[in-house]
């Protein structure tokens, strides 16, 4: 088997094949970064909306809670097909990449909003009350008081989730998006050994996720220890 792999390597790592793999890696990275980036922004917006008060905003809160509770529980693959068939049902033509991206955003928004909410809830109630009693508005309270303290609670689970999501994007291959797993499978189908194709795939996933983990750790250290002047 070793012999066969060694024999295949020169044929496998051709210019064309390498580019094909790197492009797939780019797709995986784009799905993860855009998905989680937008998910973070929307997730934050959901938490903000959920904190509204008064009867006027009750429908907003109900919608948000419903959204979060539903989409945290749907398997990613199922959601992919829901998005696919929904867009088709409405006669909208969206690329597979677009569909995967929508699905990722929908799910990561729900997840990340829960992570952010938990971070906010870890801050003692008196910190919110003290700010409010001093006439801080909601934005000022978040900006000056809550966010600087909540970071260290939010970042570890958030980055763990981002890294997990890199892996979950593999499911988009089921739909035909040319991301890492799919490309590995294509090569495998062309006759290259599974060890080589999926081994490369594994290595590239590692190359994607390891720096993200490290970056998360650095950010955590920086933000958690930095006390705002």
């Amino acid at each position, binding site marked *: 088997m070793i012999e066969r792999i060694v024999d295949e390597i020169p044929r496998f790592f051709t210019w064309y094949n390498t580019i094909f793999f790197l492009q797939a890696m780019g797709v995986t990275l784009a799905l993860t970064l855009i998905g989680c980036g937008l998910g973070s922004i929307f997730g934050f917006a959901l938490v903000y909306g959920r904190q509204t008060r008064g009867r006027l905003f009750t429908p907003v809160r109900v919608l948000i809670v419903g959204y979060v509770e539903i989409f945290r529980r749907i398997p990613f693959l199922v959601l992919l097909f829901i998005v696919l068939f929904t867009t088709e049902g409405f006669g909208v033509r969206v690329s597979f990449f677009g569909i995967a991206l929508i699905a990722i955003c929908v799910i990561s928004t729900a997840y990340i909003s829960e992570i952010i909410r938990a971070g906010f809830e870890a801050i003692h109630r*008196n910190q919110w*009350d003290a700010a409010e009693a001093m*006439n801080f508005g909601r934005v000022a309270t978040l900006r000056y008081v809550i966010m600087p303290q909540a970071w260290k609670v939010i970042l570890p689970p958030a980055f763990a989730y981002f890294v997990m999501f890199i892996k979950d994007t593999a499911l988009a291959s089921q739909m035909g998006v040319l991301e890492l797993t799919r490309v590995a499978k294509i090569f495998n189908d062309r006759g290259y050994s599974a060890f080589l194709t999926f081994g490369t795939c594994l290595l590239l996933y590692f190359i994607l996720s390891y720096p993200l983990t490290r970056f998360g750790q650095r950010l955590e250290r920086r933000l958690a220890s930095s006390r705002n002047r």
Partner: protein
Amino acid sequence: MPHLEIADLSASYEKGVDVLSGIDLQVERGEILSLIGPSGSGKSTLLRVIVGLLPPDSGRMVVDGTPVNFHDKRSLRDLRGRCAIVFQQYNLFQNMNVMRNVTIAPTKIKKRAAASVRAEAEALLEKVGLGDKHDAYPDELSGGQQQRVAIARALALKPEILLLDEVTSALDPELVNEVLDAVRVLAGEGMTMVVVSHEMGFVREVSTRVAMMDEGRIVETGTPEEIFDRPSAGRTRDFVAKILRG
């Protein structure tokens, strides 16, 4: 005209479960009113209503002749501009040093000039005996020091009415007095205060009047002598006897 007037006020956290019911209270300018009563009787809740953190379900509140509309932003902002509150613990923003804690609201919220705010903050920190701690973070201070910073921060807002909610209850006994001393200084300066405290000696010494609360109601108000020496309500007698026995 009373500085703070509350009439037939009720409040709740969940609909139907009144935590305060039929509260009537008048605090004159310069008065120091102490609220006493067993845990869970609604003392903190009353302070939260006064500072505009919890809108009451019914009743009236008038500050300095102006009725408060708890559902109007401008009215609430005005109310909070007149009142300042210090809680039992976790008052200070943990991510800011002492100076920043004291100056942030005056500069960022009231938009006052940084230089004059800073000068005032220095004077206030000096007053509470922490002139050398400007750069310390809350977790580097003792509980007593933190509470004194919290008092300085409240004063930096130039409140007309200062609300203190068990500001010494979370402290080790040897730290209680340094905080009470800071409050004594303010008491001598004629600021209107509503104080919740279990330090009965202190309450007796500084209060102009004492109100006894139980189960969301004010059961009795009177001078410290009346409440401690000749309480008329049975609940007050029991409570005072129990507290004084320790």
